[in-house]
């Protein structure tokens, strides 16, 4: 390869550097066969829709977390031994505190650039999980989790949980009042688990809460185990993404069998590289100007005080909200043992909710009996029931989330906190139902409108008087490109209840056909070819 050009006069002799890079590339390729991967990756197609880049926001903020976090490990000391603070923050001078807290304060006040790094790390963590959340919503509402991508949905879900675990362990490390209060709540929840709860708590904290071990243990989890698992899962996630390729929205030439868009190399790679720096930049600006977790305000952890407005970071908020919404006094005493339902209830409901999220792809596939591969992203309106389920789930989550800030809602809107809580309790049950019905109606309405437009064009607003004296509004046809979007979606039928091979109808099948009927009983069929031809004749 590198020897050929010199003989032909028409090609310019390669420059010294070009020859050097060529030789280097060759050297590497001969030993790693990497060129195949580069070719494969480079020809990978990236569809042009903004919502497909949310995962990237998550990925890049994770890189920022890794970099800033590594830097923080140089200075943070995860020990709960007591010292007297002698750093430069005046209102804590001379106070006894753990080494962990003191070193976090030193990072904030006495190490150059430390506060910026701390704030960047924390802000990036908030962004990371927020971006994952939004990315999951995009995948859900476009049906991009369907075959063959179910497994990757699940891996993504695992990443989401790992990210929350990383966030929570990180939140607990500075050993300030806020993080200690957070740990205390977790301790309470663990202890409420019947029989084994107290054992687990003692195991976790190395004795009675708070003990002297938990920071060091969480530190190991936070910087070793969890990141390792997270990076591995991330690798699987990316690999499956490459194998399965992206979904795309329907359009002329975009079918279930191809992927249309810009190849990653070079345009997208350039854009993506730039985008990484944009994410980095946005985080830096935020970290430079906006305080996050001012640990110096909270003081060292001490089990007695609790501050007003003690909340977890946003991603744990839904769990905190669930605890706040449970009515008080829900306890039963059995054989002198207290079952605190006000803790066990959320502890049971939240895993159910998360489980539904994790296994939704299989649930939907079972209900619809759809075993085909899907590479075309659904427009949310074209799957009304799924979209409605999503809306209900979002509402459920949002109510729990709002409940975590019930006190701030009360003070900032001049309401009584009891009223806020009772309203949210009611909303937790009514909200998802209303959201479900409303969303499904809206989707069906939109589908009907799409059908109308595909067949008869859109109203141009131009009123014409016909020779006979009749007034009509002129309808204009949408162009082919637009019309494609309106037409391309699958029509589903409810599953028929059929006896199985042994001629029996099982209970499972009955439930399934019920659910399938519920999924598809109201639907708007896509416009078919005949209708289309008929409509274009008048």
């Amino acid at each position, binding site marked *: 390869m590198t020897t050929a050009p010199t003989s032909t006069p028409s090609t310019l002799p390669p420059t010294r550097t070009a020859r050097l890079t060529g030789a280097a590339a060759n050297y590497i390729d001969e030993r790693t066969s990497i060129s195949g991967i580069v070719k494969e990756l480079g020809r990978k197609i990236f569809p042009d829709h903004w919502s497909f880049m949310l995962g990237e926001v998550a990925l890049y903020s994770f890189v920022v977390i890794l970099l800033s976090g590594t830097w923080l490990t140089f200075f943070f000391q995860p020990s709960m031994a007591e010292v007297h603070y002698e750093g430069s923050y005046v209102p804590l001078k*001379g106070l006894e505190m753990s080494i962990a807290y003191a070193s976090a304060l030193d990072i904030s*006040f006495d190490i150059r650039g430390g506060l910026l790094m701390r704030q960047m790390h924390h802000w990036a963590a908030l962004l990371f999980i927020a971006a994952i959340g*939004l990315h999951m919503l995009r995948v859900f509402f476009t049906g991009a989790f369907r075959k063959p991508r179910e497994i990757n949905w699940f891996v993504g879900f695992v990443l989401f949980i790992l990210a929350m675990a990383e966030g929570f362990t990180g939140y607990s490390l500075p050993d300030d009042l806020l993080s200690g209060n957070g740990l205390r709540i977790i301790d309470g929840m663990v202890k409420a688990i019947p029989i084994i709860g107290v054992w687990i708590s003692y195991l976790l904290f190395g004795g009675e809460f708070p003990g002297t071990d938990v920071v060091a243990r969480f530190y190991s989890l936070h910087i070793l185990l969890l990141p390792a698992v997270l990076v591995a899962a991330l690798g699987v996630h990316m690999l499956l993404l490459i194998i399965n390729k992206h979904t795309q929205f329907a359009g002329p030439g975009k079918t279930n069998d191809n992927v249309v868009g810009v190849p990653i190399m070079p345009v997208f790679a350039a854009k993506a590289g730039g*985008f990484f720096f944009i994410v980095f930049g946005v985080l830096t600006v935020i970290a430079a100007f906006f305080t996050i977790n001012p640990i110096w305000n909270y003081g060292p952890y001490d089990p007695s005080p609790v501050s007003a*407005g003690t*909340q977890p970071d946003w991603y744990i908020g839904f769990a905190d909200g669930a605890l706040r919404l449970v009515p008080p006094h829900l306890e039963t005493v059995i054989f002198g043992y207290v079952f605190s339902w006000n803790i066990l209830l959320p502890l049971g409901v939240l895993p159910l909710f998360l489980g539904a999220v994790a296994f939704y792809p299989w649930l939907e596939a079972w209900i619809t009996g759809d075993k085909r591969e899907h590479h075309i992203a659904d427009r949310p309106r074209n799957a009304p029931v799924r979209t409605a389920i999503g809306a209900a789930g979002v509402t459920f989550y949002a109510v729990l989330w709002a409940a975590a800030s019930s*006190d701030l809602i009360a003070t900032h809107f001049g309401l*009584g906190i009891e009223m806020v809580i009772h309203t949210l309790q009611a909303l937790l049950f009514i909200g998802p139902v209303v959201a479900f019905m409303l969303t499904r109606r809206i989707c069906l309405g939109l589908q009907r409108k799409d059908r109308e437009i595909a067949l008869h064009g859109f109203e141009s607003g131009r009123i014409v008087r016909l020779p006979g004296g009749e007034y009509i509004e002129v309808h204009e046809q949408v162009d082919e490109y637009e019309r494609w979007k309106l037409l391309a979606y699958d029509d589903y039928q409810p599953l028929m209840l059929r006896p199985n091979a042994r001629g029996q109808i099982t209970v499972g099948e009955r439930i399934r056909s019920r659910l399938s009927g519920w999924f598809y009983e109201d639907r708007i069929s896509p416009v078919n070819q005949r209708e289309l031809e008929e409509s274009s004749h008048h």
Partner: protein
Amino acid sequence: MSKKTTSDRSGRGRNTGRRHPLATVALLAIGLMTTGGAYAAVTTAAAADETASPAVTQSTIDEGQVLFDANCASCHGLDAAGTENGPTLIGVGSAAVDFQVGTGRMPMARNQPQAEQKPAQFTDEQVTALAEYVASLAPGPAIPDEEYLQADGDATNGAELFRINCAMCHNVAGAGGALTQGKYAPTLRGVLPQHIYEAMQTGPQNMPVFNDLNLSPEDKADIITYLKYIEDNPAPGGFRLGDLGPVAEGLFMWIFGLGALVAVTVWLTAKSH
């Protein structure tokens, strides 16, 4: 001050076990100093009042009574004996009146879960007159000494005491917080040292009283020092986002952080027409 001197000297006397020739003189001196000290304490308290309004005299008290009858008696009753609409003020002391009227809480406008803070309706002289009038009815906590209001105490001790005694209602950074039934602990930013002291001393509305046995005057001065420290020094981390904690941070990240980046993704993937 005088108390400390007393104990020092008597200690030494006991150690020698025998009356020193100068003992009588010392005793005399002690007697003089204690009475003198007590006198001085009384007069400085009076002097502190005098700096606010010259001469605590019967005429000030009379002026206060006139103001009281006109503005407060409808709820608190003539002679401050209390009515259905307001509690008795006998024995609440000048500190309570100075706080309630000085921060604009009194006169109360309407029945609410908590007396709302309004722009103060009286001049400093009038507030003092009202305070003196109420104080003249029965003894009670007095307007604090200037020496405790300088915000030059021990900020570390103040911060610690604040976290233990106040943060559960007012939040660690004094940003305020919710209580039950529509009541709330207000933010402590911009509150005058004098009013902070009086609030602790008198426990307005739903706030507990922190008397001098709970928190000594020096402790109160330390708390004031801490509150003024965080108020007067720029926040180390940049804008504080209201000191509201993780909720404000989460909202900020969702709206401005993720919002900005979504805008960028839309821009990056926009078709170049």
